[in-house]
């Protein structure tokens, strides 16, 4: 998940310094600073990707040769493939669940006035400040009490709970900037509440919903603490990696990492395309 964030942050910072430099001295100073920041952010990732092609198991420089062996090995690792599948399943379901609950919650917060609204808002947002370990343990206790067997589905519920705050915060912030007269105009023109939501409100908060969804997905994808407490026998990818790492770093892990980097890159491109607001839209 941090991949998504850091990459976009880096993109922003490169853009903002491309303004006209005043003097060569300052320009040089800036270049060094930028270079240092980028190196700090990306050297570890570059190393990871590079060593995933290394013929040798050792992590020493220079590399002995290039190979795709580790990727072939990955393809044959059933446990790993299952873990990846589980991670996708959990991340997708918890994202959908949290959106389905979070978007209406944000709407209620913004559009309705009811007593205790302030308290409701704080309570919805609080879990974001709770350590995952607390969410994990408390939900574990709850699930035990009501007699749920632990499975990927309990993980999904746990993730959705923790992620709700992310969705509500982002969508609520967008709704606050959306003039209420749009919805009033829609109602005035004869639209029902649902028509207004799908034809007017949703298109105008689209990028916030997509952004919150992508962020939820990545957060869920690499979540460990909540997953650790709530999963049954199934492993998600981060849990699998973590468990194999106890037996030492392998180039196979590098290969998994490299694939995740590639996947994140796809997500970033996707988010840039999807979140590009149409001209005129807010």
């Amino acid at each position, binding site marked *: 998940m941090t991949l998504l964030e850091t990459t976009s942050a880096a993109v922003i910072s490169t853009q903002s310094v491309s303004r006209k430099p005043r003097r060569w001295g300052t320009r040089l100073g800036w270049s060094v600073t930028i270079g240092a920041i980028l190196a700090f952010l990306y050297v570890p990732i570059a190393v990871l990707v590079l060593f995933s092609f290394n013929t040798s198991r050792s992590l020493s420089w220079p590399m002995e040769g290039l190979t795709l062996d580790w990727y072939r090995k990955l393809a044959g690792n059933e446990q790993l493939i299952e873990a990846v599948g589980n991670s996708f399943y959990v991340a997708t379901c918890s994202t959908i669940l949290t959106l389905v609950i979070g978007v209406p919650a944000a709407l209620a917060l913004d559009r309705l006035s009811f007593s205790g609204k302030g308290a409701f808002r704080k309570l919805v947002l609080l879990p974001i400040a709770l350590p995952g370990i607390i969410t994990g343990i408390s939900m574990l206790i709850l699930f035990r009490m009501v007699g749920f067997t632990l499975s990927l589905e309990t993980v999904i519920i746990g993730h959705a709970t923790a992620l709700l705050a992310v969705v509500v915060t982002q969508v609520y912030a967008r709704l606050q900037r959306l003039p209420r007269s749009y919805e*009033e105009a*829609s109602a005035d*023109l004869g639209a029902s509440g649902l028509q207004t939501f799908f034809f007017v409100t949703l*298109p105008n908060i689209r990028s916030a919903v997509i952004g919150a969804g992508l962020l939820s997905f990545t957060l869920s994808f690499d979540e460990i603490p909540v997953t650790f407490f709530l999963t049954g026998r199934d492993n998600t990818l981060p849990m699998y990696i973590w468990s194999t790492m106890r037996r030492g770093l392998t180039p196979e892990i590098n290969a998994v990492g490299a694939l995740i980097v590639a996947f994140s890159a796809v997500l970033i491109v996707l988010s840039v395309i999807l979140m590009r607001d*149409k001209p005129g839209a*807010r």
Partner: protein
Amino acid sequence: MTEIVALKNISKHFGTVIGVDNVSLTVEQGEFVTLLGPSGCGKSTLLRMIGGFEEPTQGGVVISGKDVTHLPPNKRPVNIVFQDYALFPHMSVGKNVGYGLRVGGMRRTEVAERASDALELVGLADRFDAKPHELSGGQRQRVALARAVVRQPKVLLLDEPLSALDANLREAMQVELKRLQRKVGLTFIMVTHDQTEALALSDRVIVMREGRVMQDGTPDVLYDRPSSSYVAGFIGTTNLFQGQVRGETLHALGHQLLVPKGLAPDGSMLTFGFRPEKAEILPLDAAAKGTLPATVTDILYHGNSARIVVDVSGVSLSIDQTIAGARHGSGLPEIGDRVQIAISPDRIMVLADEVAA
């Protein structure tokens, strides 16, 4: 004439704030009625109760003979043009205009047809595919109008429709609005704080203050016979002074003026007023009865007329004099001149200073 909107003793409270206070009024089919008053007097709230965006705390709303007090906006045969136009930014102009028909279940092709007809009406047929943000302020205004009339509502509500436009455009749009209203024969209820706009456009103006109706009348009645100094002061300029009537004489400003018999009850101290153009400035030596001696303190030129400010017994009065083109300036006094002013007796207004019922 048939009554299309009736508000019955309608009030709206926002907690302890009283937005609208026991207002009753009716609007006839095809009328152009304007709610006029300063900011915060409850005009928008009143309009929003007709549109269904606010539910009255008390009283009822009847549209076209049907009680709609508790119906939501989408169940009322009225449409509103918002102050910020509220055009949907993600839809083209044509989609915006057609929106009301589309959500009503009309076929796509017919919607497009009707939408372009409506755009034609406001002279924007060629901007069907443009996005709202590509339009100028005046064009957006017209799209909002087209979108509101396309559903053929019984009443069109307009909340300060011209206030977002600059002065030149505003005047052009006034003409446009009036033309549109005549053309489609629709009932308009407009809200504004601009008295010129209200007088120029409306068949009837309702002057509001602090949630209540101060006066309800045609523009000329409001101008010639304002019922209170509040209305007199809000609409045009009025010279106000205190006085006492005895028979056909008005004792005011330390002098005596002639007034028609029965202008006001004998003997009580009241507020009187006259419009700047209803008085004349005469040289001091001219023999005239019932005039006020005055000193000129200021002269303001307005093209073909001038406003002359005079002092009468310590009260400042404004008088408009036209300047005859050929004899430029010759008819006007100079600052410091001693003059006398004659007010046409039938142009003196009596103003109830209590709030009108």
